[in-house]
């Protein structure tokens, strides 16, 4: 947890995980990490175009939140959304193919790294305009409320997004309409190259939620079980008609904002402190201490995920380019 912040406990009773599920959380995080590492390598090989925003360091948020969801729930997320998609089960090859601009990409090569979408998995959209996903999540949550099937919508966004108007309008709407939406703020302390203390009057963004009388939880976003423990009761409450929750996950991105950013503006001591709190290392240690995951098993899991990511990327790179001869108007209008 970031210095100076204390996790707040929600009042709900925790929903326990089995040993196998706790190990699975680790596997999910490893898969996301290895995916992103492969994206980086593929980028250097010239396979990824334009820009890409890696989520290394944020894996516990994606994994912990996704674990608390049902297959018929909705997710809205951002340009830094590879982890959310993978945790939700997006096919890695289809994701790589999208990043590579191929026909087999999850969006046929039309969307790219910033816009991975898979409506069948409830992955309703990756928004490149900061804050734009929040009102959309409100709409999906309203839909869930109207349909009465106890679905929820989870909405991921960054600390920087809490300064844009759309954030505030969405928070207010969600609360006055008691919508089943979980706002998950991944507070990594930076919006692009600017630290939160330059742009925001406080570092604990749960304070924002209080202004809307919204239930709010502050959690160590690098502790996957803590993220799950905060999300599961919020989801349960939302399903029962209890309204929205704002969950602030304190976390840190290991790399720069996007592929061109070496992140020189960060204090090396701050970076080092957070790297020691790498969510993968933390959870691996917890599992080892509980006798659930030996070193060899963990290493095997990592090699397996690395090989799988490489194989998926290789298959994606072998696929045909998205065709310029396709019917774009049919992709624009029904």
């Amino acid at each position: 947890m970031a210095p100076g912040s204390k996790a707040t406990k929600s009042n709900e009773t925790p929903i326990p995980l089995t040993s196998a599920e706790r190990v699975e959380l680790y596997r999910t995080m490893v898969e996301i990490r290895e995916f992103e590492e492969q994206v980086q390598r593929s980028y250097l090989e010239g396979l990824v175009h334009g820009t890409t925003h890696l989520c290394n360091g944020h894996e516990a948020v994606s994994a912990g939140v996704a674990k608390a969801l049902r297959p018929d729930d909705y997710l809205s997320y951002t340009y830094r959304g590879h982890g959310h998609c993978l945790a939700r089960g997006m096919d890695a090859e289809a994701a790589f193919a999208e990043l590579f601009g191929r026909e087999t990409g999850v969006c046929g090569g039309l969307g790219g790294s910033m816009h991975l979408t898979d409506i069948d998995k409830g992955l309703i959209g990756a928004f490149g305009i900061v804050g734009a996903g929040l009102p959309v999540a409100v709409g999906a949550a309203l839909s869930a409320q109207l349909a009465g099937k106890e679905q929820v919508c989870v909405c991921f966004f960054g600390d920087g997004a809490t300064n844009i108007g759309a954030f505030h309008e969405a928070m207010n709407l969600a609360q006055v309409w008691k919508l089943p939406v979980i706002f998950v703020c991944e507070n990594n302390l930076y919006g692009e190259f600017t630290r939160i203390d330059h742009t925001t009057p406080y570092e604990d963004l749960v304070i924002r939620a209080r202004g809307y009388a919204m239930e709010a939880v502050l959690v160590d976003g690098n502790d996957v079980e803590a993220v799950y423990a905060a999300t599961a009761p919020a989801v349960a409450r939302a399903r029962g008609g209890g309204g929205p929750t704002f969950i602030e996950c304190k976390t840190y991105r290991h790399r720069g904002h996007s592929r061109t950013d070496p992140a020189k503006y960060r204090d090396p001591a701050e970076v080092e402190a957070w790297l020691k709190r790498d969510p993968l290392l933390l959870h691996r240690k917890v599992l080892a201490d509980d006798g659930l995951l030996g070193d060899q098993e963990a290493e095997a899991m990592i090699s397996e995920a690395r090989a799988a990511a490489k194989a998926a990327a290789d298959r994606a790179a072998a696929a045909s380019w998205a065709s310029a001869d396709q019917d774009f108007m049919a992709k624009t209008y029904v």
Partner: protein
Amino acid sequence: MTTREMTYREAIVAALQEEMRHDSRTLIMGEDIGESGGPFKTCQGLYEEFGAARVRDTPIAETGFVGAALGLALTGYRPIVEIMFADFLGVCFDQIVNGIAKHRFMSGGKVDIPIVIRAIGGAGLRFAAQHSQTAESWMMSVPGLKIVCPSSPAEAYGMLKAAIRDNNPVLVLEHKALLSMKGPVETGVDDVEMPTGPKILRGGADATIVASLAMVGKALAAADQLRAEGIEAEVIDIRTLRPLNVDLICDSVRRTNILVVVEEQARTGGWSSNVVADVVSEAFDYLDAPPARITLPDHPMPYSPALEDAMIPSPETIAATVKSLL
């Protein structure tokens, strides 16, 4: 005054720096423009020279800081704002179209609105649908704004300088694919005049090609290709979208009798329709063929590289279109 080779990006910085030195009422606001100099480095060195009060890093809050520009302008300042990607003009659209553009009029002409909105737009860098628009058409239909489109380092310098001295709201639509373009720029010019219309960049008797921003370079390349086949195309940079002045284009068409307009905008609602309509009204009898518009197709920008390239008007397409009209 000195003339030196510089990039489009450096020309932007030079104009900002000179004007901020010239008038202490100027200040600039935008995201990550302080110590880091801007995501596209278009504010490099300004923070060091002018300090945090005049080079203001803002939160991600386009509605907030663009709206604040109006408040500043109404009370004696001359604000400049940077919109990192022109696409984000969508976020602060209301402040611009219902506020900044109309405030003087609604006050009965009693107030001046000296605001510059710089927005970096354009395709070609694989940034996909939400980060590749130039916003020309979005903004074209808003009375009360001036809109300029620099196609070279010298234009970027001149237009920005003039925009900052202008007492009207001026939208400067810069193009990210041009940021590293090099060219001669005469800097240290005290009083640059605001362009009032298009400019002929290359004379020719056989056809008139009009373009904006990155399409100007494509039009010039097309003219080179045509010359190799003995066809002389006149290339005109539209420069100012608002107010739109087609006099020079009509004069050109009276000489060449052929008109092709190229823009990096979706076909429906693109500014080339305006140019064609005005030229047809004014110089119909001089046209030997129906004027042609070359635009982006009417769908959003795809991400995949070859698809993006296929969308953007190419010199080959422009040259072929000219030939088809001769």
